[in-house]
Structure formats: C-alpha cells, structure tokens
C-alpha cells in the first residue's frame, strides 16, 4: 500500500528545499560582483532579480515549517528534497538567463541551466562571443557547483546542525564518506575542489599568457576553463570551445584537470592523505585505464585508416583528446560538432558513444555508468564464468579493491546492473524521441548518449531550432542522469502517492 504523504511531509520537504534555494540565490552575488567590476549594469540587474526571487521562494518554502527547531528527515523526504531543490533552482536560475536576451525562450534558458547543473555542457545560448563576463562566469560557476553538488554546498557551510542532513546528501547521488560526519565530508570535498581551483586557474593563466592572451583575459579564461574542466562540464566562453585557443599546451593543461576531475573524491582524499598506491590498485582507475586505452586504440585505428588526420600529433590532439573528453564526460571539443558525423567513421563514432556511456568514476563530477559499476559488472561476469568451470562443491569468493578489499556480493552486482540498465533505457528513450523528431539515427544516438551520460559532445543536433519536445526530453534525461534516477523517481512517486495513496 502506498502511503499518502501528509501535510507534515510536504512541510518538511519544503523547509529543506527552501534552505537550498536561498543559498543558491545568494550565490548570484558572484556574477553581480563580476558585473559591477566589469561595468556590466544590465546583467547586474538581471541577477539581482534572480537573487530576489530565490530569497522570496526559498524563505517562502521555509515558512511552511512552523516549529522553531528544524525537522528530521526520512530517507524518502531526503530524496524528494534533493530532486525538488534541483527543479526549483532550475526554474529560478533560468530567470536571469531569460532576462539577458541571449536565449530565445525560457525553455532554452532552462535547458542551459540544467546543462550547467548536471555538468553536461550542451548550450543553446545565442551570440556567445558577445555574452557579458558576468554571465559567462555564472555559466561556468553553476557547472562547477553542479559537479560538487548543490546540496553538498548547502550542507557544507549553510545547513549546520540540521538533523537528517545525510539523507538529503545521499539523495543527490553522493554516497562517499571521506570523514565520519557528513558535514565534514561535504566540507572536505570543497577543500579539495578549492585547492585545485587555485592551482588549476594559475596554471591555465600561465598557459594563456604563453599563447598570447592578455593578463586580464588569460585570468578570466583560466578560471572559466578550469571550472568547466574540473566539473567535467565542458562549457566554454566561445562557440569553438577549446579549438578557440589553437594551442596544444593549453589543451594539455585543461586535459589534466578534466581527467582528475573525473576521479572519485575519495581517491583524491586518499592520495592527499599519503596513500598513493591507491591510484594503481583502485578498481575504478584500473577500469578507466583499460577501457580508455581500448577505445582510444579503436578511434586511432579508424581515423588512421581513413586518413582523417595525417600525422600522429593531429591524431592525438583530435582523436585521443575527443575520446578522453567523452570518457570523462567533459565534452570539451577541439573539432567542430559536424565533423564527428561528416569525417569520423562508424567504428570511431561507436567508440565515442561507448566511452560517453561508460563515463567516469563514482563520487566524482563525471556522468555515465561510472567505472565502479563497469568494474563490478566485469568482476561479477568473470566470477560467474569461473564458478561454472569449478566443481560444484567448490566455494568461490570474488573480491575487488576500492580503498579497501571488498567482497563482491550478489546484491552489489545487481544494484550496479540495475542502474546501468536504467541508463541504457534512458538513452534509448532519448534516441527514440530524437529519431521521431526527424533526426538521422546516428546523430540522434550520439546526442542521446551525450545527454544521458551528461557529456556535452554534440554531433550538431542540439540547437535552438530543436523541437520543444526534444528539449524537454533532454532536460529530463540530464536531470535523471545526474541524480542517478532514484531521487527523481521518488519525487514522481511522491506526487503519485499524493494523488493515489491511502
């Protein structure tokens, strides 16, 4: 029997959702600050409008809870609050975009906000060359924020001492526990990220100076590209994406951060705490090394055979770079979108699609199946084959190393495969809707894989002229993929229970 949510349930969820929305709104002080510095007055007003609305809605939601002490959360309420926070922030975050005039519709604005939150990186923004610095800073920042997790931010610094904090944290598809206390874990994630932000921005700033950017522009570009790389978001401040810089060194520096951005936060913490051997023992890094090598070889073979790129440097800068961009689910591009379909052969495209679907590590900024699940699947399959070959009386135990040695249990394997199947089902739905809208099957599949894995590479399909039904489909898929389905399903289930439950 489905229990009908009570008024108390809605008030609890509203309270926590309101907390996240308020602090999302306060983050708009960042683009306001940049706008004031750069004398971009209209964007300042647009973001001030967004800030005011976030405060109004956020505190309005919090007012639904009338006790002085904050309420405790059940698991269901936590998941619903996480999903609802994202949805409300999406709707409010689209307001400054819409007011700016750089998006053709509110739906396009919402698409780009969701693309940023989910670190996908597909964009419908118009006239990107003339977008104000404050707006570009916000675009990159929400991608960086989305990679960390909005709820993680709220828990880290603004939601102190709230009971049930862990439940809303898990609802955002975060299950790493660096430290015993979830608040401390959330803050540790931010410490790791901020240190990398400082180092990465400095390195990209230096690289920008070396390729001819002015000091001020190099600093801005360095900050933006770092945020997009680390969050594996893939946004760029210009339509040509990374191709704009025409620089191998700049690509390499960015690539370092997009690769390590796709690694598990626990791995970063382990290495920081001195456990460097974890890099070579960890199931996810091993799986990533194997899959990326095999897929890169396939791409290189196809592109080399067809003569798309005549020399090894070009093959590396275009072929390998795009493969790594896909596998880490970043979406940085050093070629034009149409070149995928026009020049890359079917095997290379297939390798790219597989890479996008496989994705990066769990508990990272990356999307896709996650290397942990892929590794578990391979281990489980190998174990099943081994068991069949052994005498019936023999007992076989499969283990894997993930910061410690773990026995692979059937329920773990089943859970991994369930999520992978959900990804495949979601990708198929996106593919079908794209095909139904009249796009060719290859482009529709490529784009759907990119959206489902929160990658952001494009075969040229994503544009403001896409049918609205496809834009809405992609928004939902990005949301589902980023929160890894369960929170969103629980939210929909909650709504259903509200209507049908007893």
């Amino acid at each position, binding site marked *: 029997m489905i229990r009908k949510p009570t008024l108390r349930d809605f008030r609890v969820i509203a309270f926590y959702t309101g907390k996240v929305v308020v602090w999302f*709104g306060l983050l708009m002080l960042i683009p306001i600050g940049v706008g004031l510095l*750069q*004398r*971009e*007055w*209209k964007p300042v*007003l*647009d973001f*001030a*409008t967004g*800030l*005011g*609305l*976030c*405060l*109004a809605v*956020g*505190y*309005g939601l*919090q*007012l639904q809870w*009338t*006790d*002085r002490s904050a309420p405790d959360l059940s698991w269901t309420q936590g998941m619903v609050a996480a999903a609802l926070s994202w949805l409300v922030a999406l709707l409010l975050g689209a307001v400054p975009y819409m*007011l700016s005039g750089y998006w053709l519709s509110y739906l396009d604005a919402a698409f780009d906000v969701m693309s940023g939150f989910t670190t996908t990186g597909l964009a419908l923004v118009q006239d990107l*060359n*003339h*977008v*104000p*610095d404050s707006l570009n800073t916000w675009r990159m920042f929400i991608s960086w924020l989305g990679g960390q997790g909005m709820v993680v931010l709220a828990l880290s610094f603004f939601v102190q001492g709230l009971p049930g904090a862990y439940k809303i944290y898990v609802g955002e598809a975060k299950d790493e526990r660096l430290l015993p206390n979830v608040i401390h874990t959330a803050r540790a994630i931010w410490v790791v990220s901020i240190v990398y932000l400082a180092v990465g921005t400095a390195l990209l700033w230096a690289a920008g100076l070396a*390729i*001819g*950017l*002015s000091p001020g*522009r190099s600093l801005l570009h360095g900050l933006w590209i770092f945020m997009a790389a680390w969050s594996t978001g893939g946004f760029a401040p*210009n*339509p*040509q994406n990374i*191709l*704009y*810089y*025409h*620089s*191998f060194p700049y690509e390499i520096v960015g690539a370092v951060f997009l690769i390590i951005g796709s690694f598990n936060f626990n791995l970063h913490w382990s290495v920081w705490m001195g456990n460097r051997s974890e890099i070579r023992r960890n199931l996810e890094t091993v799986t990533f090394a194997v899959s990326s090598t095999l897929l890169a070889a396939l791409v290189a073979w196809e592109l080399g055979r067809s003569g*798309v*790129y*005549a*020399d090894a*440097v*070009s*093959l590396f*800068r*275009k072929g390998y770079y795009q493969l790594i961009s896909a596998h880490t689910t970043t979406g940085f591009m*050093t*070629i*034009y979108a*149409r*070149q995928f379909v*026009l*020049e890359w052969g079917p095997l290379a495209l297939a390798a790219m699609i597989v890479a996008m679907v496989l994705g990066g590590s769990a508990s990272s900024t990356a999307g896709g199946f996650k290397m942990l699940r892929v590794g578990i699947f391979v281990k489980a399959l190998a174990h099943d084959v081994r068991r069949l070959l052994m005498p019936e009386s023999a007992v076989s135990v499969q283990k894997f190393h993930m910061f410690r040695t773990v026995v692979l249990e059937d329920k773990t394997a089943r859970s991994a495969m369930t999520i992978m199947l959900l990804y495949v089902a979601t990708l198929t739905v996106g593919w079908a809707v794209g095909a139904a809208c009249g796009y060719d099957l290859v482009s529709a599949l490529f784009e759907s894989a990119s959206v489902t894995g929160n990658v952001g590479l494009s075969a040229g399909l994503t544009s403001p002229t896409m049918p609205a039904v496809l834009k809405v489909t992609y928004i939902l898929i990005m949301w589902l993929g980023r929160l890894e389905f369960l929170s969103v399903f629980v939210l929909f289930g909650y709504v259903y229970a509200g209507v049908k439950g007893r």
Partner: protein
Amino acid sequence: MLVAALLMLAGAEAAGATGQGALPVSELIEHAAEYDGQTVTVEGEAVGDLMLRGESGWVNISDPTGDIGVWAPAQALRQIRNLGHYQTRGDRLLVTGRFNRADPVHGGDLDLHAESLLVVASGGRVDHAIPKGSLWLALSALVLGGAMTLAARIRQRIGVK
C-alpha cells in the same frame, strides 16, 4: 613573411570592399573535404582575443553561420583595432587564404592560413542602456525577497505553531 605582411597591410581599410565571393563558415565545415587546400574568402567579425605568437598569430572570426580561426602574420593582425566582446563590436574582416580541413602545421585544426587580410569596417564600443523595466523588476524582486527573509526570521524567533 615580411613581404606577405606588407602585401596585407597595403590592402588595409579598403573603402567599400565587399565580401562578394565570401563563403559562409558553415559551408566550409559542411564541405571541408571539397575545399581542403583551396584558396577561399571568408568575411566576419574579429572576436575574442588576438593571440600573437612570435611573427604570426591567431584571430577567430565570426559570421552568422559560425566561427573559424585565422592564422596570419602578426603585422597584419595588428591592424585589427576592435575585437568583439560584450561592450565592443569587432572589426569586420575580409580574409582570403588557404583553407585546411585538418591543418598538419597546427595539430589537425580546421582553419584558414591568411594570404590577405582586410579590415573592411571598423567596430567600436557598444553602449548597453539600462532599461527602466529591468531596474524596476530588480528592485521589486529584491523588496519581495527582503520581505520574505524578514518574515522567515521573525517566524523562526517566535516559533509560532
């Protein structure tokens, strides 16, 4: 290299120069194999940054269909006075040069190696007026947000059931 730069400078600020025969950037991308290695003409706005690297450098130009990178002698690039940003409209350039689908000199980039670069129209500052409507909307939203903040704070202190 110097002779090439001088030839380009000699054609600078050609009054009334038009982009007749200029190809849209999207045409080059869609039919890159056909145009590969050929001399083509592109017209567009200089955007973003001038990236000078020794005796040559890059500028990216944008037309309504797309953007493309142009590799040209530094001397020629220095005639560009305005680059497109939020507060600036970039100079309009007419560039003729060798189109590369996968430039072996520049790591496989799809780009244009300029043989001539003309500034056909100067850009300049763009003034973004502050619409009164935006001002009132922002003030209204902030007042509403402030009121709800105050209400929530008061409610929290009182803890009314």
